[in-house]
């Protein structure tokens, strides 16, 4: 009798996101140098590194806000093909609006501060072509609820809200169209420790409920440790080490990672 073994699941699955060999410089500053990264469906990829290591630049490229000098970017989704860096402005905008959500560290980058919070979320659906007021209202409410935003502040403008609440509005906006990919750039940096914990809780719950693929960037190892399945360590625009979260935290290989992990402990 012969025994046949199925190949493990993970091998069959293709990464949802694949970035290959991207480089980007600003004048003489090389912000990102030949970086490759991937994330499997439902996975949380954490990117950690000191300030100025190119994390935000990489994330902006994943959101197609910034086009690198070299490299390619693919998303394994229906109706999406080819190197996304080669899309024209119009196609790029539609793709970002419908497939990718982003939360910035600075809420001013992601929100219209004087519009209502629900309007900020509804804008996403408007861009995607929704034209029923009742549907917009409902979808905005649901997304804000999923982000654990207090619904009695539904129409308050973000400018009147606390930092933690502003991040929840950004999050609601990012998930309103149920994107395949959620990008988070230091989503809790600058918040009080207790508020930070609450926002991280929400992110964790969302991730578990929706199996959404996330890329989270932080200089804070604690944040990465809470959320990430896999970790990529960046320094001066380059990747110095990648691995499963447990691996990186228990048994860092690169001296820089060791330094980071030990400093944290």
């Amino acid at each position: 009798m012969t025994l046949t073994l199925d190949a493990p699941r993970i091998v069959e699955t293709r990464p949802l996101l694949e970035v290959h060999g991207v480089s980007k410089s600003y004048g003489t500053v090389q912000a990102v140098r030949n970086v490759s990264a991937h994330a499997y469906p439902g996975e949380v990829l954490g990117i950690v590194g000191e300030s100025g290591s190119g994390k935000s630049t990489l994330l902006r490229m994943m959101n197609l806000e910034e086009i690198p000098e070299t490299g390619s970017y693919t998303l394994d989704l229906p109706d999406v093909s080819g190197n996304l860096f080669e899309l024209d402005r119009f196609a790029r905008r539609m793709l970002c609006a419908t497939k990718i959500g982003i939360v910035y560290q600075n809420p001013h980058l992601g929100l219209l501060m004087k519009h209502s919070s629900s309007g900020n979320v509804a804008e996403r659906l408007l861009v995607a072509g929704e034209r029923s007021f009742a549907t917009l209202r409902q979808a905005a409410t649901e997304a804000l609820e999923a982000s654990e935003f207090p619904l009695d502040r539904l129409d308050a403008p973000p400018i009147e809200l606390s930092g933690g609440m502003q991040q929840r509005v950004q999050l609601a906006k990012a998930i309103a169209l149920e994107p395949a990919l959620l990008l988070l750039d230091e989503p809790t940096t600058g918040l009080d420790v207790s508020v930070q914990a609450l926002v991280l809780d929400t992110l964790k719950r969302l991730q578990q409920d929706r199996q959404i693929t996330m890329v989270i960037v932080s200089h804070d190892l604690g944040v990465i440790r809470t959320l990430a399945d896999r970790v990529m360590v960046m320094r001066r625009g380059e990747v110095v080490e990648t691995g499963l979260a447990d691996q990186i935290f228990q048994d860092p290989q690169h001296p820089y990672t060791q330094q980071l992990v030990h400093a944290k402990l």
Partner: protein
Amino acid sequence: MSLSTLTKPWEAMSYGFLDGSAKRELRRKMLKSVAVPGCQMPYASREVPMARGWGTGGLQVSLTLVNPQTRVKVIDQGADDSVNAASIRRFIARVAGTHTTMDTLEADLIQSRHRIPEEILREDQVLVLQVPNPEPLRPVQPNMSIARQMHADADYGRMWLQLYEQIVRSGRVMQGASYPSLVNGRHVMTPSPIPRWDVPKLHMAKHLTILSAGREKRIFAVPPFTRVEPLVFSDVPYKVEGHGHLTCTRSGTTGFFMNEIPQDDGSSAFEVSDSEWGVKTIRAHDGEGESRGETWYKDGEMPQ
């Protein structure tokens, strides 16, 4: 300096104040704007002996389109006899030798500010609207080069967001005049400061409408039989001003756009805004014969 030193009377070969090259520029841009309905075309706006902001954009279009046989009607806020309308009308007649009229049905070209006449315009008529602010995206995007890119991408999410915000804040859409409208399913335009009442008149109209902003140097058009759809949510219907039941105290006509005249006792009286329509109604009542044409609104409603 007087007007006579700036202008010369019309001659058989040279009329309309503007020189040949100015007219050619305007004609080209008018053709372009007809080719891409609702899309703003920049043009070289000339000086005319009138201050920018008083209808110089409309005037340049009118001066380009008229010839000595044209019958011209000019209205301001619906009235033919307001100072601004009268002086523009007199100016066009003087420099182009045109005939003038107050009768909407008789006019070949109608230049207007704030209103579209109540009588239905025909295929052979041209409506020229004076536009103070041609850019519908201005309230949501002050940077004009980004706004142009947004038009190119049909990126109108922010316009819709503005309507959403108005409903959230006030329970209804607050936009009164210049209601943003989608032309030919492609470009959003501001139809000059005409009231909401007049916007449906542009939809699939038989006449050509040219909208021109002299200070902003932009021209756009609604060609005949072109869709003009006000931006509205599918579940919040477009509403025109509730004038359908009002009666004009002077002429007794009912079911048209009215001007409100505050009275000493605090109440309001109403007068039909299209002054020529009022005059025609009075004449008909006095037995001077029926000269009124078909109107867009019937019994205060616009038939679909």
